[in-house]
């Protein structure tokens, strides 16, 4: 069966290819950028939640984004926290961010007391080697070790100190790097200080109560529930949703404009063809349908190519930057596809409307 729309697409191969690429880039831009943002946030949030603690107790003025905090509390607070009703265990942690060993924005280091850390969650699983014992012992997670080809007994210099990797732990819990609490305190020249306290409650049902109690007993200090960490993190990053929205809008606009330009030039080139259709008695709706169909077919092919490009980009980033997560979710795949179709449809609408209104004789005589 004759299909003028498809026949024209295959005739003008270069223009068809460029239009498809524009839509594909729109789709992959949306999916990869959103996936990168979401992946990073989700990864950070899940690592905090996977520690197993119920509450993060933070100093006044601090942020849920631990790597941005530069505030410290006295370690003596631990004695008051642990005697709070409902609290089972408390683990002080001092944090620092090192730019060494790659990672998106650097790698978070936790200075911990190993036993107390286990007491609040117990989910730091050692895959190789031994726990922290010596002053300059270091644990790294599996992902960081693989990304930097680190082995047991390798030495890593951080904050002008030489640490020895004594253990490799399972990834996805807390920080990627662990060193002894007192070592990091001394290195940072913050003796008897902590950046935060992890708090474990006697039972999950008490968590809310305990958090309120802590806020009352320590006015100005901040409590962050582990179970809401992900949402609170997303909210605390000012403008993250606006950023995602802006990227999405820009991508749609670019795709819409490319389709508009492609369809506009194609209708001008095919003015005589439109004149022939009118001479044959084609309705305006028929002409609009022919041109919009072309735009939508271009978009659909572009969307499929965009999906493939996104998956390829995700795979490449996973290989090249193993510490960075790109999460492409089904809901965003569907949304990006719909946005691609919408940009194709509206990009073709004006050119098709213009074509439908052409005078048949003028169109037939167009050179």
């Amino acid at each position, binding site marked *: *069966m*004759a299909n*003028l729309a498809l*026949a*024209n697409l*295959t*005739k003008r191969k270069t223009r068809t290819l460029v239009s498809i690429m524009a839509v594909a880039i729109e789709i992959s831009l949306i999916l990869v950028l959103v996936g990168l943002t979401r992946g990073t946030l989700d990864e950070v949030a899940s690592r905090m939640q996977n520690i197993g603690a119920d509450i993060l107790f933070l100093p006044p003025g601090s942020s849920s984004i631990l790597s941005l905090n530069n505030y410290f509390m006295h370690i003596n607070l631990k004695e008051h926290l642990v005697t709070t009703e409902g609290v089972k265990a408390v683990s002080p942690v001092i944090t620092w961010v090192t730019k060494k060993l790659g990672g998106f924005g650097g790698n978070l280091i936790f200075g911990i007391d190993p036993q107390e850390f286990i007491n609040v969650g117990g989910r730091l699983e050692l895959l190789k080697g031994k726990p922290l014992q010596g002053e300059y012992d270091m644990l790294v997670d599996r992902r960081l070790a693989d990304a930097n080809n680190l082995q047991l007994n390798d030495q890593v210099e951080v904050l002008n100190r030489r640490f020895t990797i004594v253990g490799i732990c399972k990834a996805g819990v807390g920080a990627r790097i662990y060193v002894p609490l007192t070592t990091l305190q001394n290195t940072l020249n913050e003796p008897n200080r902590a950046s935060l306290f992890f708090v474990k409650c006697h039972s999950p049902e008490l968590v809310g109560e305990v958090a309120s109690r802590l806020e009352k007993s320590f006015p100005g200090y901040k409590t962050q529930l582990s179970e809401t960490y992900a949402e609170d993190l997303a909210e605390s990053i000012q403008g993250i949703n606006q950023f995602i929205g802006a990227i999405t809008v820009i991508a749609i606009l670019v795709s819409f404009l490319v389709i508009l330009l492609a369809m506009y030039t194609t209708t001008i080139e095919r003015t*005589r*063809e439109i*004149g*022939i*259709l*009118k*001479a*044959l*008695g*084609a*309705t*305006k709706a*028929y002409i609009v349908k022919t041109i919009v169909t072309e735009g939508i077919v271009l978009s659909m092919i572009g969307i499929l190519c965009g999906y493939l490009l996104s998956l390829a980009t995700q795979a490449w980033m996973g290989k090249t930057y193993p510490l960075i997560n790109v999460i492409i979710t089904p809901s965003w795949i569907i949304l990006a596809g719909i946005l691609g179709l919408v940009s194709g449809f509206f990009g073709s609408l004006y050119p098709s409307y213009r074509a439908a209104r052409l005078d*048949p*004789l003028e169109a*037939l005589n167009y050179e």
Partner: protein
Amino acid sequence: MSDILRTENLGKVYRVGKIDIHAVRRANLRIKKGEFVSIVGPSGCGKSTLLHLMGGMAKPTTGRVFIEGIDISKIGDSERAKIRREKIGFVFQRFNLFSVLSAQQNLEIAMQICHNGHVDHQRIKEIMSLVGLENKLHHKPLELSMGEQQRVAIARALINNPVIILADEPTGNLDSANSYKVLYLIKDLNRNLGQTIVLITHNQEASNIADRKIGMKDGTIVAPS
């Protein structure tokens, strides 16, 4: 015999800057069912404009056009498009085929437009056989000679059983051999199928093939109508 097409004081004026150009003046024509009429005149005399007015491709400035008794001069674009697809077949000097489609597909498009997407492949084969191109169904226009392209255009004009075929200089782009073939094909369509045909030409010899000749000069019909 009833009138398939009738014009009453038909006129068309084009305004170019401050000048009015009277392309057609007070044309009165009657074309009966089954007639083969040629309209002949020098280039620029208004024959094509007259044809376009008769076929509903342009709106007249004055006068009226009737196709099977329906006045098409005052109706809107959609209604005129309906008249064109259901009642009129056009053949143009430049063939005006879709270059991206095969001969068969060019006819399919015409059928789709007229019959809401429905295509009768048997009829396409019959019509292509009638014009002697049953073996060229899948050829694109560029793969056909100019004479063959014009015959495909004639087949397209016939495909929806129009009440009248309007042919505007159908041999204008053809050599003499192909012109002869096309003219006699048109003659055969009239003689064997009773197809009503109006042929526009500047060529006196070509115009003689019709049963009735109408002369035109400076936008005015000057010979029997």
